[in-house]
C-alpha cells in the first residue's frame, strides 16, 4: 500500500484513503460549443499513457475530499510530488533533479 501526501491536509496517509482520478492538466474547454469534434474527442478520450513520470489526479476521498495533482512514476510507482489543483504544473526536469 502506497503512502500519499495530501497537499491540503499536509499529511502522508495510506493509499486506502485516496481514489485515483485519471490524468491531470486536461482542462475542460471554456466554450465547448466552439471546439471541433476532433478536439472534443481528444478532451474526452485521448490520454498520454506514460511509462514513467505521469501527471495525474487523486482525490483524498476518505479524508478532506479534495482533488489534487501528483506526478507518479508508473514504472516504480513512486510519487515525485503532489500539489494543489491551482498550483502550476511542476517541471519534470526539476522534479527528477530533486528526487536524486
Amino acid at each position, binding site marked *: *500500500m*502506497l*503512502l500519499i501526501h495530501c497537499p491540503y491536509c499536509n499529511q502522508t496517509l495510506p493509499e486506502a484513503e485516496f*481514489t485515483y*482520478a485519471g490524468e491531470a492538466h486536461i*482542462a*475542460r*474547454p471554456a*466554450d*465547448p*460549443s466552439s*471546439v471541433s*469534434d476532433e478536439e*472534443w*474527442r481528444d*478532451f*474526452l478520450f485521448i490520454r498520454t499513457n506514460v511509462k514513467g513520470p505521469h501527471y495525474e*489526479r487523486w*482525490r483524498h*476521498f476518505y479524508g478532506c*475530499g*479534495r*482533488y489534487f495533482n501528483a506526478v507518479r512514476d508508473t514504472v*516504480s*510507482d*513512486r510519487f515525485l510530488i503532489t500539489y494543489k*489543483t*491551482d498550483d502550476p504544473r511542476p517541471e519534470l526536469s526539476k522534479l527528477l533533479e530533486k528526487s536524486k
Partner: protein
Amino acid sequence: MSSFRVSGRGRVDHTQPIQFTFDGKKIKGFKGDTVASALLANGIHLMGRSFKYHRPRGAVTAGSEEPNALVGTRRGPGRFEPNTRATVQEIWDGLQVNSQNRYPSLSFDVGAINDKAYMLFSAGFYYKTFMWPKSFWDKVYEPFIRAAAGLGVSPTEPDPDHYASRYLHTDVLIIGAGPAGLAAALTAARAGSRVTLVDENPEAGGSLLSEPSVMIEDIPAWDWVAKTVAELKELGVKLMTRTTAIGYYHQNFVGLCEKLTDHLASPDGETPRERMWRVRAKQVVLAQGALEKPLVFDGNDRPGVMLAGSAQTYLNRYGVRVGDKAVIVTSHDSAWYAAFDLADAGTAIAAIVDTRAEPNADLVAEATKRGIRIMAGHTVTGTEGRLRVKSVRVNPVTGSSVGAPEIIGCDCLLMSGGWTPSLHLFSHTKGTLKWDEERQTFLPDHKAEECEIAGAGRGLWGIEAVLNDGAKMGAAAVKSLGKTAKAASYAVAHDRPGTGVSHKELPTDLDAGKARAFVDYQNDVTAKDLRLAVREGMRSIEHVKRYTTNGMATDQGKMSNINGLNIASDALGVPQPKVGLTTFRPPYTPTTFGAFCGYHKGSHFEVTRKTPIDSWAEENGAAYEPVSLWRRAWYFPKEGEDMHAAVDRECRATRASVGIFDASTLGKIEVVGPDAVEFMNRMYTNPWTKLAPGRARYGLLLGDDGFIRDDGVIGRLADDRFHVTTTTGGAARVLNMMEDYLQTEWPDLDVWLTSTTEQWATIALNGPNARKVLEPFVEGLDMSDEAFPHMSVAECRVGGFPARLFRISFTGEVGFEVNVPAHAGRALWEMLFEAGKKYDICPYGTETMHVLRAEKGYIIVGQDTDGTVTPHDAGLSWAIGKMKPDFVGKRGLARPDLVAEGRKQLIGLLTEDGKTKLEEGAQIVLDPNQPKPMKMVGHVTSSYHSDAAGRPIAMALLEDGFNRMGETIYIPMPDRVIKATVTGTVFYDPEGARLKL
C-alpha cells in the same frame, strides 16, 4: 523409541511424548517435532507422491522450502488443510495427517503409471499432448489431467476458525532471527530503536539451532541464542515467531502472517488461527539466510535422498538420524560437517563423494580421522530403490570423461549443491540482482527500498562472518534513522566456514536422455525437460519457465531456480547473467485465504446498509434484495403467496387505493450557495433558473461524452438551496462527479455539496387515497391540488416531525414522498400505516415499484440504460435545456456518432401471444431464420407481468427502434423463438389523468 532417535539430542522435549496419526497409523514423536522429523525418527521417509509422475517422495528439506512432503492435516470438521509442509507442521496429540495424490495407498499407487508414460508428460505437454481435437478438452483431457496431476484436495466445509488483522509501525523490522538477524536486532535495540524481529520458525536461532558445537564469545551457540533473546526482550524488542514475512511492498510495507494455533493440541477457541500483520517499517533488515541447492542427477528424488544441511538439522535440532548408512554427495564444504555430525552420532558414512578434485585439506583430515572414505572428483550417476534409496552409483570424473561406476549401498543419500541467498522479499521490491561469478549465484545489487541485507542473504558464509555482518547492518539501519549505533564484533570458535562450486546437471556415463534428474521436485521438471524447451525454441528464461513449469509450483522454485538457470544457460550457450532470473512474487510461502480475508467474511464480508424502516419490513415478513450495498424490501408475501402473487396484489392495491414504500435509499445531495442555481444549470441537462422555490423537476445528468449517468427528482427549496435526489446505486458517484467539476473546473462557483442520504428517511405514498392518508398528519401546508400541485416541494411538519414533502410520482398515481429525520422514519411509517388501514394501505417493495414505473415507461438508469444511451435514445429529449449555453454533456450530444441515424432506442415490446414474459437481457433479431451467428439488433432491458395491463410488458433497446413502431421482432430463446410487437413505452394511463387529485 526407534533406533533413529538419538537420546538426549536436539531441542525436542524427550520427556513429552506425543502421538499423532499418519494415514491412520499411530506415530510417536516428541514435543517440538515436526511431522517430518517424527516420521523420520520412526524410519519413515516415504511421505508423498509427486505431482505429475506420482513418484514416491520423501522430505528433501527440513524447512518451509520443502517441495515433496506435502500432507493434509485435519482437526475435526471444517479444519482440514491440504498441501501442508510436513517439515513445518508441528505435531500435537491427536493430529491427523494424511498423504496426498495417491490411490489406493502411498506405497502402492496406480497413478504411478504416469511415471512409465514419461514421454507423454515432458516439457510443454500441456500445450502439445492435449491440443486436438478441440472437443476432447471437456470430456477427455481436462478430467484426465485433473485426476492424474494434482496436489491435495480442497476442503468442502466452511472454515470454522477465525482470522485476525493488525497494523504495526516500527523503526526497524528484521526478517529472520538467525545469527545475522539476532545480531542486527541486538545492535538496533541497544541503540534505542523500536525493533520488530520475526521468524517463520517456532523459535529464534535459525542456523545456530543446527550448529550446537559452535562457540560464540566463549558461549555455546544455543546458550548465546537464549541469552540474546532474553536481552532483546528486556530491550523491548517485539519478537514474533511462527511468523512469515510473506510480501515486501512499496515504502517498506511488509505483510506478516503469524500462525497462532496450528501447533496447539487444544486451542482455546478465542485465539485466531492466524493473524495478518501489515507493518510499516522505517528500516528493514533482510536476514533470511540461504537455501541449500540439490544436485541434479538421475534418481535424485528417491525417498532417502535429502539435502545434507537438512540431515544436519534433523540430527541437531530434532535428535533424529535420517539413516543408518549414508552416502554424501556434495560440491560444497558444508556437507562435510553434516557427515561429521552424523558419524559422531552413530550413522555410518559409506563415502563422501565430492565433485571437486581437491576438497579442503582440513576437511579431508577430519574425515580421515573418522575413517570416512573420500571420493574426490567423483559424480553420482544414479540411485536404486523402490520406496527408499538402497544404493548409489558413483563414477570418477577426469576432465570431461566419466569413468567406470561403483555401486555403494546406503539407506540415505545426502546432497549439497551449494547455497542460494534467499532474496525473494528483496526481489518483491524490484531491487535488482547482480550475478556473482565466484559464488555462481545472484546477489543483491541496487536497492529500491530503505533496507539492508545481512549475512548469508548477501553471499557470506560461516557463523562469525554472518554475525558480524548482522551487527553491521543493524547499525546501518539505525544510522539511516539519524541515530548512532555501535556494531559489536563477535569472535566465534569451532566455526564452520566453507566454499563450494555450482553445477548444471552432474556428468554421467549413461544416456542423459533417459536420466530422471529432477530440477523442480514439486512440478516434476527434469534437466531433460529444460533442454527440450530450449531445443524447441524457448529463448527467454520466462518462456522456459512457463513451457516446463519449472519454478511454478507452490514453492516458487526456492530450490530449483539456480539449477534451472545453470542448465538453461548451458543449453542456450549464454552466460547466466545474460539469461536472467524469473520474477519472485508474494507470498513467500503459501498463505491461507483466511489470513488474507481476516475479519471480512460472512456478514462482515461487506457492510449491509439498512434503512431506518428496515426493522419494520423484517418484522412484517419482507423478502429482501440487495441494491448496491443496501438490503431493500423486495416484496411482502402473505401466507401462501409466491413472489408473482404478492407483487400482483401490491400493484393492484396501490393503483386501487394506496401503497406505502420505503424510498430511504434514494441518494440525496444538498446543493447550497449563492451560485447553486448556476451550478445546477451546468451539471444537469435541465434549465433550473426559472424553477421557483417550492417546485420540483425531473433532473437528468450526463457525462461530457453525452451519455446518461444518473437521474432523479430535484426540488428547489430556496433561491440558493436544492434538494437533489439520485438513484440508489449512483449517490456516491454523482457526488464525486459534482465535486470534481466544482473543485477542478469551476472553482469560482460559491457552492457547497453535502451528502444527506442517511440523514433523511423517505416514505413514499402512492395511489388515489394517498392524500387522504397523509393530509391529517401534515401541519403548515395547504395540500390542495391548486396550492400543492404535482411536482411541488415544501418544508413543513408531518406527524410532528420536521419534514420535506414532495408531491411526485414514480407510479403514475398521485404520489407523495415524505422526508423526515432518519430517527423519525419508523415512527412516521407506523403512524401512516395505522392511519392507512381504513384505506387498505399496502406496503410494497422494490419489485412492485419496478412494475408500476415500467407500466408508465419511467426508466431506471443502469437497467434501461447502460452507459451508451443518450437522452434522445431514452425518449427524454424533453429534459434538455436547449437554450442553455453549456451543461455537462451538451457538446458530447453533438458528437457525430450520437446524432447518427439508427441508434439503439428505448421502445416497448408486447409479446404476440399476450402471455409470454420476455427474459431481461434477451437478444433481439429481425430475421429468426438467418444463419448463425445472427445479427443482434438490441436487447430486452425490463420485463414484468403487468396487473394493470393484464399482460406481460417489456422495454428494450432496439436499433432504430423509434422507426419500427408496430413492427414484429424476434427473440430467439434456447427452446423457441418469441415474437413481439414494437410499441411505445407507456402501457398505462397515457394521458396522465391519474396524477390529478
